[in-house]
């Protein structure tokens, strides 16, 4: 069957019509240096009935200002405010009410929305406001209140972010879409890889899926156990691989513990230029790279072309691969390439000390290792199993020989922290900021997750089935 599949891939006109996915980007050397000087997060929770979105953002904002006496409302030049869906609170133009509640009027503001990547886009919009010189100090704030509708209604709202002509009416369900993607990912890389020797096609596919699920469960355990040391996380848990596999089947092969939850929460970041950064903090963090990428809204339209290569990869690595198909996130690769180029990163595994990435599903964490070039396409499962993305010094209940090589989601990620969409990408920014400041112990009340001497980290925010992805790279801005 793989032979047939390969043949049909070659017969596709798209194979000849393929375009390189990543556009060449020349970093703008005229951009001003941008520093993050503080951030704040509310605890992410299933529901915060006692706080509406305005109060949640206010709490996160007040936390960010704490301890910086000369950073007050009048020093903020303007804001960028993000939330994903008007449906969740049935309040349109809600960002205006946040602006209003924070006392920011009449400063400039705009609402940012880009699906699941909303928070990451807000992070970059606030960056751009300062980099362009339009503002000296910009507040990026985001939130989501998803508890205001029942869980399955919430899933419906999220699924409305898929094509309502062709996709949604079939049973519009994002977990279903990601399941379709990972079944193909497993087919491409485990069926045709580790299980290539198995002659019976259906048996081979079953074995490959079982193996894929086992390895996805390692990722789920990692993120849940990391979160035991993060007081902001919604869903910390000392789980085991068996727990994850035994948790409720949502959309085969994805089980409940491999999927993030809906959440209420808010997060804010404050960016400024170099001169003001020194005024506000002796531990600023510089944003040295930003990248974005997109892909088709419908999975059905994804091309079967060539892989845009990372510095360490060669075209011959992927002779047999039709890319991205529905198995990989081309937008993630494009965003990573752009951000790496701007930041001068040629080897993310050695030049980055950690990554906070968008693990809405344990499967997408593994797919994203490959998109971001932490390993080649097809090596994501081995990469997880070897332990590279795990933290040293945490007991996961199984061996992780290479733990600490490049920790991924030390905070617990979306799977364990929760995913209040408009806040999520900013939450990653705040956790990355504290890592690079070396202040995790102060903010978490627990030093376990602090990566020693972290100099540089990346954050990665991702919209529905990889239709948009942002990657931002942060670097310690002090000695």
């Amino acid at each position, binding site marked *: 069957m793989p032979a047939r599949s390969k043949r049909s891939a070659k017969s596709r006109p798209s194979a000849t019509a393929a375009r390189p996915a990543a556009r060449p980007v020349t970093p703008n050397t005229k951009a001003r240096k941008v520093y993050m000087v503080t951030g704040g997060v509310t605890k992410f929770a299933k529901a915060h009935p*006692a706080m509406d979105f305005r109060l949640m953002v206010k709490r996160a904002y007040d936390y960010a200002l704490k301890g910086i006496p000369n950073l007050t409302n009048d020093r903020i030049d303007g804001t960028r405010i993000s939330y994903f869906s008007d449906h969740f609170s049935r309040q349109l133009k809600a960002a205006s009410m946040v602006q209003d509640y924070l006392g920011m009027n009449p400063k400039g503001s705009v609402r940012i929305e880009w699906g699941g990547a909303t928070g990451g886009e807000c992070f970059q919009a606030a960056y751009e406001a300062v980099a362009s010189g339009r503002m000296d100090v910009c507040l990026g704030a985001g939130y989501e209140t998803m508890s205001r509708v029942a869980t399955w209604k919430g899933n419906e709202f999220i699924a409305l972010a898929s094509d309502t002509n*062709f996709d949604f009416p*079939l049973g519009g*369900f994002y977990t279903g879409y990601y399941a*379709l993607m990972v*079944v193909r990912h497993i087919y491409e890389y485990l069926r045709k890889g580790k299980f290539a020797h198995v002659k019976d*096609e259906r048996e081979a596919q079953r074995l490959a899926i079982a193996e894929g699920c086992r390895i996805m469960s390692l990722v789920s355990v990692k993120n849940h156990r990391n979160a035991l040391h993060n007081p902001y996380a919604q869903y910390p848990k000392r789980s085991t691989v068996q727990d994850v596999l035994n948790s409720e089947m949502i959309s085969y092969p994805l089980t409940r513990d491999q999927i993030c939850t809906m959440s209420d929460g808010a997060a804010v970041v404050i960016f400024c230029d170099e001169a003001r950064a020194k005024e506000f903090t002796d531990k600023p963090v510089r944003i040295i790279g930003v990248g974005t990428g997109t892909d088709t809204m*419908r999975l*059905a339209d994804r091309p079967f072309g060539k892989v845009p290569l990372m510095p360490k990869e060669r075209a011959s690595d992927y002779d047999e691969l039709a890319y991205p198909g529905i198995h990989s996130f081309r937008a993630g690769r494009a965003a990573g390439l752009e951000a790496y180029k701007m930041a001068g990163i040629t080897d993310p595994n050695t030049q980055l000390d950690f990554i906070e990435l968008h693990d809405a599903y344990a499967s997408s964490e593994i797919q994203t290792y490959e998109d971001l070039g932490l390993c080649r396409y097809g090596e994501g499962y081995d990469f997880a199993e070897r332990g590279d993305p795990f933290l040293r010094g945490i007991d996961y209940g199984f061996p992780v020989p290479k733990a600490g090589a490049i920790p991924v989601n030390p905070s617990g990620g979306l799977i364990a922290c929760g995913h209040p969409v408009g806040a999520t990408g900013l939450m990653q920014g705040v956790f990355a900021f504290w890592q690079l400041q070396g202040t995790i112990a102060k903010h978490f009340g627990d030093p376990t997750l602090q990566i020693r001497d972290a100099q540089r980290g990346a954050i990665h925010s991702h919209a529905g089935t990889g239709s948009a992805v942002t990657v931002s790279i942060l670097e310690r801005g002090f000695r």
Partner: protein
Amino acid sequence: MRPRPPTFTKFRDVQAELDKSGAAIFRDADSVESLIIRYPYSINYIHSYAEDSAFFLALADGKLKGSRCRRPKCRFVYATPRGHCMVCGAPTEWIDLPTTGRIHSWTTCHFGSEAFLKETPYNLIMVEFEGAGSLLLARLKDAVESELYVGMPVKAVFDPNPKYSITDVWFVPDR
């Protein structure tokens, strides 16, 4: 005076009360009380299929339509039709798709959006067609999870009572 709504310390009890009376008070761990009400919302959209219309009209006639780029040097074939070519931007023309194909990927949904919960479990498949450069998302009926695999031959079935929805076509195993 209307009596104060009942107070609960569990959020799920609040939800149950809203279904009953429409109002409840939630008291959190810090003893903060929030008044919570039921707030219904429904709407009928005047939804136009616009440039995709011919596809849905064809489904009602028991036909599966794709589209093909008109530009001679491109001729990209879309299994999910697009009015304009994604590769070169030229307009496309309608073509008949085969009614048989193969499973490119699959899943069985045991949960779903609220609108589809009552239909669970259901299978979603991505179908690949000979000669087409893109795929089609569809339901697969008459087969259970353990029977599905990548490469499985499938054929289209059309709803004899079409509702002008993508659900007017589904697939079954082509045994």
